[in-house]
């Protein structure tokens, strides 16, 4: 009797397997159409399949897409936003004084049509265009916002001044205020509550069309920092209220209240579900920031696997991040592979060394470990997302970052023979055998990092004979560990740009006092690399104020050589890519800055 029940159970089991198998068995015709163009920007371009010609619809053009990140968008308030999804929305709702061209990463005029720089390079005077109205969605359409006298409210220098000051105000508790604070005169003291007088901050509206900003340093990236979302215009009347407007306080960004002035306006934000942006017909447009062709964009907040199912079901037009687990299937599928594009993402994945820890306190060991990592093999067999093998830390594509095309021999490459030689030299000198080395690699708990760590562990075993222990910790616990005296010998991190300048990588992350190389008040290392090289510090400082791009790039190249080769304090592993799939009827650009500029997109279904 029992065997009968097992038989039924077995039948069901087989049925389940068949169902699961169906899911996997996509047509196995390999047709790789992604080709790499080794141009200046190193953009990977798909060979386009002809779009099916269908009659143009009469209805509105609505694009459906998703966010790269999971869950609700944390904030649409420029003063407090800090994550990519929030910034993506804010950049479409508003425009800064200047704006980054998302493809070639150059600064183009935003609300400021032009700006003058004083001779000492510290004072910038911005001339603002006077034809940009504040708008809101009134439930049926996008309308202009009127002031209490019934006239249209236009974006003024005062709105920008208010925006800067609100971001810097200590009560706002803006996590990104420090980026302004370290660049703009007087901003730090106001943000630290050392003074409560906003006139001490070096941002002043001279009149409605002119904004003056005083900086602390004559730095090449000043214009980048002042154009960050933290410095966007904000509507004072809406946040604090006036004679004809109710104060919406911290809830001013919600559906129905939100006011903005960029190419799109907020139509609806259903938390945890979706954000819909409607075209702002009153955006005057410019060469760089055109009036949108799309009438509406709907961003759904689905988990990446669920979003990809919606894409395959035809309900989403663009996927901005294809799930890792689907990449093999996408590449093998004739339809999906034609819609699949890899584009560079300005982020770097790396392992750092605690150079005060035993064994890795010797530069030969560090360099050997770095040279023993077969980056291309890792990308082909483990990460599979078309990432690029990293030879140094800054991501090519950033302003002033060296490119592999220009400097093919810079940095570190896979070289198992040389690596073994270095390691043997070290062992002979210390009188040790390879299995006496006690090495630990730590990473934050995640199956992706686990796979990479295991692959690299194997490479070290094969190429050097070294056995490295793997340890993982939960993210926030891990962050504490690798910034403390307990920092393990080898640890993992990645870095994604705040603004597209190499300064953001080479100085703000790895120089002494940087985020991966923290120091105490006396400049003594307290975690991360525990590293300070005076020559490196000098180079990145010089590069910050150098105006000539070729010279800057060369300074960073010298700095990178110290970082990844001479001192070898880190193992650059790969440079990230974005993995998109786009339906053939969508005309689009591919952003290299992190945020897409949908005003340049079109859809022809």
């Amino acid at each position, binding site marked *: 009797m029992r065997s009968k029940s097992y038989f039924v159970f077995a039948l069901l089991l087989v049925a389940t397997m068949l169902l699961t198998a169906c899911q996997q068995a996509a047509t196995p015709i390999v047709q790789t159409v992604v080709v790499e163009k080794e141009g200046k920007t190193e953009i990977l371009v798909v060979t386009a399949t002809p779009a099916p010609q269908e009659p143009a619809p009469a209805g509105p053009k609505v694009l459906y897409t998703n966010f790269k990140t999971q869950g609700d968008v*944390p904030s649409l308030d420029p003063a407090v936003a800090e994550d990519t999804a929030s910034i993506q929305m804010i950049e479409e709702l508003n425009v800064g004084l200047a704006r980054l061209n998302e493809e070639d990463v150059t600064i183009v005029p935003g609300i400021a049509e032009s700006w003058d720089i004083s001779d000492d390079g510290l004072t910038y005077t911005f001339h603002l265009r006077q034809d940009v109205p504040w708008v809101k969605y009134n439930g049926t359409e996008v309308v202009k916002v009127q002031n209490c006298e019934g006239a249209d409210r236009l974006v003024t220098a005062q709105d920008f001044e208010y925006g800067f000051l609100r971001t810097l105000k200590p009560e706002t508790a803006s996590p990104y205020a420090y980026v302004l604070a370290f660049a703009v005169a007087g901003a730090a003291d106001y943000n630290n509550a050392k003074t409560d007088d906003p006139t001490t901050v070096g941002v002043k509206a001279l009149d409605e069309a002119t904004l003056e900003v005083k900086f602390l340093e004559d730095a090449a990236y000043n214009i980048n920092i002042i154009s960050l979302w933290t410095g966007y215009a904000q509507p004072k009347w809406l946040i604090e209220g006036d004679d004809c407007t109710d104060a919406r306080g911290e809830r001013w960004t919600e559906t129905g209240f939100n006011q903005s002035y960029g190419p799109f306006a907020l139509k609806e934000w259903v938390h945890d*579900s979706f954000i819909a942006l409607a075209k702002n017909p009153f955006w005057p447009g410019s060469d760089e920031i055109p009036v949108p062709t799309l009438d509406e964009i709907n961003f759904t907040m689905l988990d990446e696997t669920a979003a990809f199912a919606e894409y395959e079901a035809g309900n989403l037009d663009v996927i901005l991040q294809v799930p890792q687990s689907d990449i093999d299937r996408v590449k093998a599928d004739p339809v999906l592979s034609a819609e699949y594009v890899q584009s560079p993402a300005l982020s770097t994945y790396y392992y750092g060394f605690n150079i005060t820890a035993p064994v890795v306190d010797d530069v030969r060991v560090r360099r050997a470990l770095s040279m023993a990592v077969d980056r291309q093999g890792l990308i082909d067999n483990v990460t599979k997302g078309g990432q690029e093998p990293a030879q140094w830390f800054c991501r090519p594509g950033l302003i002033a970052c060296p490119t592999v095309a220009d400097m093919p021999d810079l940095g570190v490459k896979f070289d198992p023979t040389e690596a073994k030689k270095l390691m043997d030299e070290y062992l002979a000198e210390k009188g040790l055998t390879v299995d006496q080395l006690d090495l630990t690699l730590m990473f934050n708990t995640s199956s992706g990092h686990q796979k990479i760590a295991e692959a690299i562990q194997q490479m070290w075993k094969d190429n050097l004979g070294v056995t490295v222990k793997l340890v993982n910790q939960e993210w926030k616990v891990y962050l504490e560990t690798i910034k403390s005296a307990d920092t393990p010998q080898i640890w993992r991190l990645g870095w994604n740009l705040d603004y597209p300048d190499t300064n953001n990588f080479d100085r703000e992350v790895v120089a002494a006092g940087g985020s991966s190389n923290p120091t105490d008040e006396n400049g003594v290392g307290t975690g991360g690399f525990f590293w300070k090289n005076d020559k490196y510090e000098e180079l990145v400082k010089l590069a910050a104020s150098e105006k000539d791009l070729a010279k800057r790039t060369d300074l960073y190249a010298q700095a990178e050589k110290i970082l990844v080769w001479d001192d070898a304090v880190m193992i650059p592993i790969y440079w990230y890519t974005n993995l998109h799939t786009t339906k053939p009827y969508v005309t689009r650009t591919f952003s290299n800055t992190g945020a897409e500029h949908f005003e340049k997109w079109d859809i022809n279904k």
Partner: protein
Amino acid sequence: MGRYIARRLIYLVVVLLVVSFITFTLMHSVPGGPFSREKALPKEILENLNKRYHLDEPYAVQYFRYLNDVMLPHFSTKAPVFGSLADDFLINIKLGPVYLRWMNFGPSFTSRSRTVNDIFRQQLPISMQLGFMAVLVGMLIGVPLGTLAALKQNTIFDYLGMSVAIFGVSVPVIVLGPILIWIFGVTLKWLPPTGWGAKPPYVLGLLPAKLGWDFFKYAILPAIALGLGSSAILARLTRASLLQVIREDYIRTARAKGLKESMIIVRHALKNSLIPVVTVLGPIFAAVTTGSFVTELTFGIPGMGKYFVTSITNRDYPVIMGTILLYAVFLVVANLLVDIVYAFLDPRIRYE
């Protein structure tokens, strides 16, 4: 009965005090804070953030501030401030010139534009709608299947029913969900692969504004995926319990009296065998109506489930406290309802 319920509700307050204290202690003793970042925030910025959220105060002050905000009613002559996230109470009642305000669970640290109360208002109803339907699916499949299996013990019905039950227990939602989406959403296109058919505002703060195909078409797959697991537990329990009951003397007596078989099963056997079933139904109910992480993630349902997980990884203290206290309330109330139902199922059980 009234006194019993009152006593249990007082216990609820004690339970909440204990749970909140343990949660508060645990979450503050875990390394890492809500504002630790890959790129560590400068000291000054951290001070601003800590000050804003009162994290610069001693733990004891923070804890009692929380209890005061959440548990004690507040009376104020001032109207609630609309735009302030720090001043958002779940219950606002105007009593003449005075406002009675109760339960401020605080702002979320991660979603800078929302409070925990916003999450309760907007996400909890969705989880409850899904949870109700999943429990219903579980009961509609589980109880008849278990009954059938018990009455036709050791026949093909028994084996088939129990195989379905084993299938339900052993195939988790993380496997079943994508299979259902693939078949009915992507391939056959009968049902939408993901999403939910209702959004705020809700009727009575709970029900969708429109109940129709546009609502249910989104609910069918996730309710089945989520309900199947509990249906399996219910089926096995019903079977085991019913097998025991139908061997009881009073069933033989009923048969001897010549009652109809259907009457014996429904009125005497099934009713008495439901006690263990109802017992597990309480915790199941509390668990699925407060949000189920995997189901909601798989089917893209904007419910509460993910907040139980992400709040902890983000160290979003108010959301951690809020979700755990919510679960505690649901669990205690569900168990109280179970106890009340006992009295109806078994006349021997009395609470006085």
